[in-house]
Every structure is written in C-alpha cells, then in structure tokens.
C-alpha cells in the first residue's frame, strides 16, 4: 500500500490552521503535520487584548480544543523551530536535529513584530504582544491603571490601545510611519483618526521620534522614553507596534524566489512545485499591477490558508479577495477598519 501523501505546514496561525482543516476535509487519508514555535494550539491573536478583560486562561482563546487535532488526524508539533527546508529533497529540518520529509509544504509562518532599527538596542526594555505569553507578561507587569507608552500603533496595537482605555489604563501614543499599518494613510487622512484617539484620552505625540528607552526603579514608572526633540516621557510598559516583518532565512535552500517575503503565484504556489505559502509571509503576484504584494489582515490571511490548501489538493483558484483598504471614524467616534473587526 502506498504511503499517504504527507502535507507539512509551517505555522499554526490563522492561515496554517485554516489550511490544515481544509486539507483534512479534502483528503481524509493524507498525513498532516504542523510545526509551530508556540506552546499551545491555534488561538486568535486578535483576541489577545481580552486578557485585560480578565480572560487570562489561554484555553478560553483557543479556536478549537486540543482534541480537535487528534480527532482530525492533524499532528501538531509545538515548540518546534524549522531551520531549513531542502527544496529538492523535500525535507524540513528542525532546530533539535530532526528531519521530516514532505510531499507538499505550506509555509504559513507569518511575520514577527517589526522594530525600527534605532530601537533595536532597547528591545529588552520593550514588551511584545505577539503571543499569549507576551500578552500575559504585559498584563502582569502593568500596574492597575498604569500607563503604556506605545510606539507606532499599527492596527494590532490600536486594538490593544482601545482595550487598555476601556479597562482603566492610560496610553501615550508616539506616532510614526507605521501608525495605523497596514493602512497606508496621508497626514490628512490620519488627522481625524488621531483626533478621535485624543478624544478617548490618549496622549498623542506627533512629530517626535523615540530614540532611547531606559529602565527606572525606586517607585517611578518602570520605563523612561527619550524623544529626539529632547522630551522624556514615562510609562510602566513600553510597547512597539510598527507592523510586521517576515523571517524567511530558513527558506534559503528551498529553491523558491524570495524578495521581502516568499514570492508566490496567484494560486499561492512558490517557484518550487511542492511548496506553497500563505499569510503574512508571502507576496502574491498581482497581474494588474505587475507586482508582488503583501496582503495583511486576518481576513486576507484566513482566506489564503484555505485557498492554498485547495490548490495543494489540485484546484487552480487564484487569490482575488484583497479586502478593501479603508479606515474611518464612525458617527459614534469609533475608529473602524476594513482590516480589523474590533470585538466589544
């Protein structure tokens, strides 16, 4: 009897999870293995701000209970870092020295939080928010009613910012080019949005750049942020929300084309016939614009995972979802975004 087809998925986020589910639905007999750096099964990152509303048990955030994976024959390999993909031998290598062969590979590793270069030397003083673990560290380190200094303020950060305000915390927002990312806005388009934030009590700092962060103790807020105009502001926690960057070093031997992300056809296939990509890690060919484009936002990402899985199983469907890029302030003074659905 022939070995079942082995689909390997790198990443267990929205794209990876959606792909695994679609693969199982489309091929009951195949093997599916997912690799993730996370310690826990797939959960919706956009729900992480809910920890400030008291949802501090990670099990409450899971998209599906752990039993789902066993019931659906999906091998979920957690705390596994892929360090190499051999595109000709069709083998994935893991950091702990295990090698795993694949028949098809979907790379849905997502992106990591981008940190402007001038702040990279202060990374250890900046709280992340890319995982449940990171969210809980913020929750635990932030005193009740304390202040967060937020640098940038992309749409993920904005969601957290609004939740912090709702739950009694204070926020100072240092605006930069990535504020409201992935929306690309002019200064005129930004102005009403920032005004709406000011109206909600956010201290908005424009036209100044964070250039240094230092720790404080002795009862003072734990962080001091130096701005390039000479001002210094204090906060209990400093966070940076400056969009996403891709990490594709592990794909260098995969015989795929790479620019900033993995370059894929509209069908999400790379230049290696056995490898597909989905989510924030890939740049999709746009025939109209004759360019490879990133499509961010969880709505796009979710669609990509499912689409890639269908194409792996033999379909030839192009990605043509591209959620409209629009952000506005509604009549109630709330910021609305086509990329983001804020849960009350």
């Amino acid at each position, binding site marked *: 009897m022939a070995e079942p087809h082995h689909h390997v998925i790198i990443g267990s986020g929205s794209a990876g999870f959606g792909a695994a589910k679609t693969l199982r639905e489309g091929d009951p007999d195949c093997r599916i293995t997912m690799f993730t750096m996370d310690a*826990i099964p797939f959960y919706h990152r956009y729900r992480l701000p809910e920890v400030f509303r008291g949802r501090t048990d990670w099990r409450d955030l899971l998209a599906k209970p752990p*039993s*789902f994976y066993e019931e659906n024959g999906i091998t*979920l390999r*957690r*705390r596994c870092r892929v360090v190499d993909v051999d595109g000709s031998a069709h083998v994935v290598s893991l950091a702990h*020295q295990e090698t795993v062969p694949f028949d098809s590979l979907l790379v849905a590793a997502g992106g990591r939080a981008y940190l402007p270069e001038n702040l990279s030397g202060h990374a250890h003083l900046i709280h992340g928010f890319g995982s449940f*673990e990171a969210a809980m560290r913020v929750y635990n380190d932030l005193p009740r009613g304390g202040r967060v200094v937020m640098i940038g303020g992309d749409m993920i950060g904005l969601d957290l910012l609004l939740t912090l305000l709702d739950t009694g915390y204070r926020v100072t927002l240092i605006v930069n080019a990535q504020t409201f990312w992935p929306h690309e806005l002019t200064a005129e388009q930004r102005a009403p949005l920032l005004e709406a934030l000011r109206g909600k009590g956010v201290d908005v700092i424009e036209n100044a750049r964070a250039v240094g962060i230092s720790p404080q103790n002795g009862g003072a807020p734990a962080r001091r942020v130096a701005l390039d105009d000479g001002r210094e502001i204090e906060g209990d926690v400093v966070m940076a929300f400056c969009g996403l960057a891709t990490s594709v070093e592990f794909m260098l031997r995969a015989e795929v084309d790479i620019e900033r992300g993995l370059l894929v056809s509209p069908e999400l296939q790379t230049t290696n016939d056995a490898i597909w990509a989905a989510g924030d890690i890939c740049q999709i060919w746009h025939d109209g614009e004759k360019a490879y484009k990133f499509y961010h936002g969880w709505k796009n990402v979710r669609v990509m995972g499912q689409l890639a899985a269908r194409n792996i199983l033999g379909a030839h469907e192009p990605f043509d979802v591209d959620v409209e890029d629009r952000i506005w302030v509604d009549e109630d003074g709330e910021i609305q975004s086509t990329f983001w659905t804020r849960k009350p």
Partner: protein
Amino acid sequence: MNKSGTDIQFAICGSAGDGTIASGDIMKRAAAAMGFHVIAFDVYPPEIRGFGKCISRIRISSEQAYSLKEQSDVFVSLNDGHAIPHVGEVRDYGAVIYDDHLIAPVAEGGHISAHIRPAQIPYGLPIRQISEQATNAARSRNIVVLGYVAGLLDLPAEAFRKVIAQKFASKPAVVTESNIRAFDAGLEAGRGVFRYDDVAVGAAPTAADGEAVMMTGNGAIVRGFLEGGIQSYFGYPITPATSIMERLAVELPKAGGRFLQTEDEIAAISATIGAGFAGSRAATATSGPGLALMTEMMGLGVMAEVPAVVVCSQRGGPSTGLPTKTEQSDLNLAVHGGSGDAPRIVIAPTNVEGCYRCAGMAFEIAEKYQVPVVLLIDLYLSNRYETVFPSDKNVFAPKPREVPKVKEGEDYKRFVLTEDGISPRALPGDAGMMYTATGLEHNELGKPSDVLHMEMNAKRHHKLKSAVNYPGLTTSKRFGDMGKVDVGILGWGSTFGEILETMFEAQAEGISCSAMKVVMLSPLPEGELRAFFDDCKVVLVPELNYQGQFANLVSGAIGRPVVRLNRTIATPMPVAEILSEVRRLAAEVNEPVAAAAGGV
C-alpha cells in the same frame, strides 16, 4: 484522595546510567524535607548498566496518598527512545520536559516533541548544553532537569541543595559543588519560563507528626527488623529482596548481630531455622523462586515449632519469570507451600509504614506462636518509597523471654498439648530442658511417634487461631462507608493502595462503597471477613495474579462468592480498571431485574 492542596506526580525517564533514579531520589527526599507526603516507585531494567529503561515516579501530596497516580503531572525525558512510549501517561495540561538540542540527527518521530499530545504542554530546553556549561560534562543532565523543575514550579531550591549535598557527602567536595552548579543552572533556566500547564504546588503541611523519613518497603523492613531485635540474618540475593540483605550486611553487625550470605536459598532458610531453634531472632528474605526452594525447611520449622521470619517479595512468575516486575502470585506458595499440613503465619503489609510495623513485630509473633512467619510483599512495595513517621522510641523492643518451669523429677515436654496449642519453649542450654527436635512427627516430649499425629496437627493449627487478634497488629481493617453498602472491595498487599484510591473516587461519584484490607493471610480473620461480606451486596477482589489466589483463599475459607479482577500486567493495578468494575457492579446491584434481563 486529595480534594485540595498539592497532589502532583513527577516522573523522570531515562536510560540506565543517565542518573534517572538518582534524580528521582533527590526529588522525593527534597519533597519529604519540604513536609509533603511522598509515595514513589522506581522501575529498573533487568539489563546491565548502559542499557534498558529506568523510570522514577514520585507522587507529592499535602494529604496522605495511597498509590501512585496513573497519570503524571510533570514528565521529564532524559532519553527520548525510552520516554516516548510513556508520554501518553502525562495528563492533559501537564508538563513534558525534554532536551531540544540533540547531539545527533534523528529521523521523523525520533524526538519526543513528535509525541506530545496537543493538550500536553511542551517545555524544551538544552539540557545537555546547560549541564556542559555548568559542569564541563553532560552527566549532570539529571540534576539540571531537577533545577529546571524547581524553577518552573517555584519549589524551594534550598531543600534540593541540601539533599544533593547529603547524597554526595561521601564523595569529594568537588562532586557536590558540581552538582549544585548543575542544579542552579537548571533552576535559572526554569525560573521565568512562562507556564501554560496547570500544575499547582501549594504550601506543604505545616504540622507533621514527628520527623518524616523516606523509606522503601525493603528499607522499612530492615528498620523494623533492627528495632524488633533481629540477631541473625542469612540470605542469598534475589530481586527484589536483595536490598534487605545489602542493608542488613551493613547494619546488623553494627547492632551486634550476625550476617551471613549463604550459597543458596536452601542454606539460608536452613541457617535461619537453625538459629531460631537456638533462640536467635533470625530472618531471611527472598522472592518466589527462593521461597519455592525454602518450603521444605519451612515445613521443618512448622513441625519442630521453630520461630523464624521469612520475607518474600513477589515478582512476576513462575520460574525466573519477570524479575523486575511486580506481581502477587506467590500467595498460594506462602500460605500453602510445602508438604503436609503445614500452617504458618503469613502477614502481607499494604504500605511502607505497614512493612515497618509488621517487620518490627514479626519476631515477637514468631516466638509467641513458635512458627515461621512469612512477610509477603511484592516488588512494588519493596521498591516504592513513602514518607513514614516512625516513633521516637523503639516500640518493638524484644520482651524478656519466659523460661519454662518444670517440676522436679518431671521431663520437659517441649510439645505439650495445651488449651491454646502453645507449648512453653525452652532453648538449647536451658538447664534440665533437653528435648528432641526433628522433622518427624513426635509425641509431647519430641520423640518420634505417630500416636499423636492427629492431636499434633490440631495443635499446630489451633495455636495460630489467636494470631488474628495479635495485640498492636492490624490484621484487617475496613475503610469508607460503614454498614450496608452496594460494593465492597477486598484487597491485600500493595494493591490495597489502588483499592483505597478507587474507593475514594467511587464515593465521590456517589457509589455506596467500602474497602477492606486483609493483612493477615494465614490464619485469615474470618470473622471480620464474614461481617464485611454480610454488609456488601457484592465483593470485588482485585489482585495481581492470574488465578485469583486471594479470592480463592477467602471464598474457600468462608464460602462466599466474590467477583474477581485478576491482572498480570507487570505493573500495579490501574485504579481506572478497578473503578470501572466498581461502577459496573454498583449499577448491576441496583438494577437486578434489568441486569438479569440483559443477561438473558
């Protein structure tokens, strides 16, 4: 059992030579020093060093526990090849700790992370690297993981450091220092790790009843023997009883006693009976194959009415069987083994504390009833550790011997027929009390004769009757719901811990349930057994043998039906299996009509 507070089970699995058992030993001693109750069991390979699987499982609780749990809360792999088959033992949201920096490539599935279920929480760390950085060697991996667990669970590090220092006290100081460095490096790695597991360790109980001592069943027997005044030990090594011999080889001469390793088991029991005849408190220890060889001489002990103590730690049988696996299949041999009608006292403690107390009283009992006493345990009880709270003063110290009195001009009748069957015993050297001691049937003087064979048989049986009421010895005890119940669970030996845990779980489910342990297997406490059967609609007897040897013994003695649950699975009886049977029986006795209809 533990409704609140701490109740976690730690397991570590590796290859022989990885320090797995040593690591478990430190964990259990540290937990006991913190004030927790500890019950632990190590599994060794039968093979030589460098091969085979070792597992140490340790249950740490704020309330007394009675058995190991079937699922561990924290599991550490020092060798993925051995550990992978056991990952399934970790409960949902428990922690699996492993090395995530292997030194050699492995194919798919060769790393433990491939086998961790989605509901279990993986904790990978570079165990070997940490050990090498801390000590310049990889051999302290077992100590690194202890530090990691202590850091992860926020356990008091100083308790571990003290135990490590004690453990390596006999080695050069550099060994202790190196291990402390390995522990501290692991501690540092474990502290601050974000925890997704829900393993909770609370404060230890504050008021312990005296100083807690960690003992194995075998260790407890040695302590009981020493406090009970053992004077002579003769033994031949055999798993799982060997450690009794090894400990006594060191301790007995210090206490003024004599130790001899004999050439085989027959020599060991012969010397034991001989010493007992001479008035020395003598013992031997063996396992099933050894006990089989000893039965002939035990028959002599019965016939000549010589006190002796024989420990039998059971393992899988028959023949060489499963030397490193537990079983309860020597009951028939212990109770009935040998030629003729050869009644003896068989005592089967159910836990480590029981081993200590039964061993402490064994010589006194043997001397009172002038008969070999078998302490019947098994590998699970021999090797498992528990916290014991021994008395500050020795409560088992030998009582002064009463020298028989003989009227002037009368012969000393060594085997005189008395009302209780016990004849005053003289020792060789007692003035005017010479007699013949032989394996031949004899008259009251001890001279060979078949005239009183019927009477002497009756005497040898009758004299043991009162042993079931021996002062200070718990020969049977009932637990749980008193009065009438739906299901009774009757057990003996090490299995009773699992029975007790089952009973608590069944009660929590609302099942009317009671459990009874029988410590004295020969003679049986028949009155207590009848009362228990009278109160139970149905009685279940779980035991680790194929034939249902205890069930047969009880039903044969009191003529009551039992439901058997017999397993020869080389491991302790799973609580889940007993509980499943209890549930089935409870449903059956409460719906007799439906059950009968279903059966038809």
